[in-house]
């Protein structure tokens, strides 16, 4: 096991896949000459050259469309977005083309593309640069959405995403690129898409949280343990297809569910998980399902306000206690 930063794990995954398969290439703003806005692709230009590590103009709609076309024609592009906020100008390409070409062509064309970049709030970036897009895109059948919380999952799942024959949206976080963690040394480390990880086991309450929120959930779980409450923490890792079964199994044990989700509450990931679980586990629930999300307003800029807006450890503890009538 090597300890790697999240960005290094991503780089290793891309590098290994590019070495393995010469149809894989990386394209995005500043991925080549500048080594990536967040240094994810550092050194890759030197290794693979400008034909496979391609700098683009600031034109998400253009290079996303280019990537989708390349994928249809048989290549396996990795598109890096500086952040997912900027995909809204490429929304039509992602929703109308990437997600639907295989369906509308009756399976004649496939779109084996990976789009990746930073997602969600990352400090004082203002309302337009703090979006969490998992709810938007997971609303679209035809897209797979992955949002890992640690370098090990990032590597194993990015390799799986690159090999997948369908469009995969890979959500990272600017705040987590420097996060260090042990990463498997396995020669070809690929994790299954759509499989949750049980990070912690407890009998009292189940907490589901992905990406950055996972760390809030773990901290809340440790704090709850000091108060005698043992939480199971589930990191779904993949948002769609969602591993509902893992959550169902856990909720049947704990009878309580808290979902921590940085997206907006209305129609968010937490809403969807909450719906599925109440339907599958109705007779097992001892309390209403709780969710901890961003507040239902655009992200504020001021430091104190953005902190209040984001889900927090305290919010998570309070939600867990509500499910326990504490």
């Amino acid at each position, binding site marked *: 096991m090597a300890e790697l930063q999240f960005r290094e794990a991503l780089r290793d995954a891309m590098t290994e896949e590019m070495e393995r398969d010469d149809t894989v290439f990386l394209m995005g703003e500043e991925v080549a000459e500048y080594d990536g806005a967040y240094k994810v692709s550092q050194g890759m230009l030197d290794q693979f050259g400008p034909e496979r590590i391609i700098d683009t103009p600031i034109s998400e709609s253009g290079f996303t469309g280019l990537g989708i076309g390349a994928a249809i024609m048989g290549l396996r592009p990795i598109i890096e977005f500086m952040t997912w906020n900027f995909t809204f100008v490429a929304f039509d390409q992602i929703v109308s083309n990437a997600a639907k070409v295989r369906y509308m062509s009756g399976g004649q064309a496939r779109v084996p593309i990976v789009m990746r970049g930073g997602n969600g709030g990352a400090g004082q970036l203002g309302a337009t640069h703090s979006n969490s897009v998992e709810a938007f895109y997971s609303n679209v059948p035809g897209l797979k959405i992955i949002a890992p919380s640690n370098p090990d999952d990032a590597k194993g799942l990015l390799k799986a995403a690159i090999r997948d024959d369908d469009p995969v949206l890979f959500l990272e976080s600017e705040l987590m690129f420097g996060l260090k963690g042990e990463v498997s040394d396995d020669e070809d480390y690929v994790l299954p898409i759509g499989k949750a990880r049980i990070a912690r086991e407890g009998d009292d309450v189940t907490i589901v949280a992905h990406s950055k929120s996972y760390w809030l959930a773990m901290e809340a779980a440790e704090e709850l343990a000091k108060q005698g409450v043992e939480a199971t923490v589930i990191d779904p890792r993949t948002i769609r297809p969602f591993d509902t079964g893992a959550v169902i199994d856990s909720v049947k044990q704990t*009878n309580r569910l808290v979902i921590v989700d940085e997206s907006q509450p209305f129609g968010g990931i937490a809403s969807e998980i909450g719906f599925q679980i109440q339907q599958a586990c*109705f*007779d*097992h*629930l*001892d*309390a209403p399902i709780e969710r901890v999300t961003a507040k239902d307003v655009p992200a504020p800029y001021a430091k104190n306000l953005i902190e209040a807006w984001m889900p927090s450890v305290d919010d998570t503890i309070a939600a867990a206690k509500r499910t326990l*009538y*504490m």
Partner: protein
Amino acid sequence: MAIAVEMPKMSDTMEEGVLVAWLAEEGASVSAGDVIAQVETDKATMDLEVYDDGVLLKRVVGEGDSVPIGALIAVLGDEGEDVSSLVSDYGGDGAAGSVADVEPAAPAQQENELAPAGLEGKAATAQAIDAPAPSAQPLGGNPAGGGPAGGASRAGDTGAAGTTAEGYGHRPDGSEPTASAASGAAAPADGERVKASPLARRMAEEAGLDLAQIIGSGPDGRVVKRDVESAVEGGAAAPPAPARPAQAPAAQPVRPSAPKTEAAPAASPVEAGGQDLRITQMRKAIARRLAQSKFTAPHFYLTVDVRMDAAVGFRADLNALAEGRGLAKVSYNDLITKACAVALGRHPMVNASYLEDEGVIRQHQGAHVAIAVAMPEGLITPVVRDADRKGLSQIAAETRELAGRAREGKLDPSEYAGSTFTTSNLGMFGIAEFTAIINPPNACILAIGAIKDVPVVDDGAVVAGKAMTLTLSCDHRVVDGAAGAAFLGDVQGMLETPSLMLL
């Protein structure tokens, strides 16, 4: 532009507010933040602030009027501005309109009883605005107010008195009133349904426990997993909810202030002062179940005087025998329990339950007699099972043991569930006779009065005798007059000739 001032929601549970006093005159200039009136909510009397600058053009409601949240209280605007369209917007589509929509019959009925003028539509609104209802007028007289609106939209709540058979005749859909509809209208939905988490509901069902008998410790008395667990483990009273910080009043727009005596509202529903006791879960359960019983089971009452001379002698003989054998002494109540149990076996219609949900009247196999026992904070009804098959000493011992633990709150829920008949005895307090409310799902309850010395005529001579009055409350859905009378006659016969119990 005219600005509407509406009745704000000043507390979590507020549904309507009483405008206690106006603090600003019509025509006065007001600024945002000024207090223009005082409003009494279900919790406190609070200041009503305006959020805009302007002239108070119209005070729409009178002092003492109760109006629902969202109803128009006042209109602000520029001097001389016409407010009639704004007011009629509220009048036409607001409270008065909703009354007509919800239950056409209610306003008409209210009209006959209360209203000095028509209550329909804009005519009524205009009337109210031109001549604000005097504060002494009943609530129902104010079209914008909570009276008729409350009665119609929350018939179960405030309109209980109006939920007579006649009222059901006016159901908008013209359907026949069913018992469940009647119960729905008669008691608020909240009081009707036992709140329980889905898990608790399933666990109780699996354990064969009646949810209604379990005291919930969750919000609003919700029965949750831990309550069912402790019920299964045997504590009758669930543990108190874990200490929770007192709920801060949610987002009160303005500070509460003490009620001003000079502005005491004529229509104040309950006088403030005295001591408020929190409604315990047991009291809630009593309230819910007994209200449900009284409002859904049509009660009728049969009263009989029982000569107890023979029973007095019979009991003395029994107890002399019991004492020598170390058996429990038999009380009059035990004799009555036994007599009832034996009679129940002979009168299956009395030993029955009206189970509407299942579409059946269930005649029970065993005669399980519950006995009402007073507790410090309420009462509970432990059950002597198969009392018809038990000897008097055994009934005496069981009853004493159950009652003792009942008073300590240590009964297992299974020990106070599953009765088929109930008795309630207030004789020890010298009560001569009374009527009791049926303990659902029983069909009948027997109210037992004191044994008194009475003059009786025996062979033409007045001699001293002993008598007791029994009153049987019957659920007419199950038991008809003759059936109840036959049962009560049997009980009377067995008490007057106790050896009949042994036949």
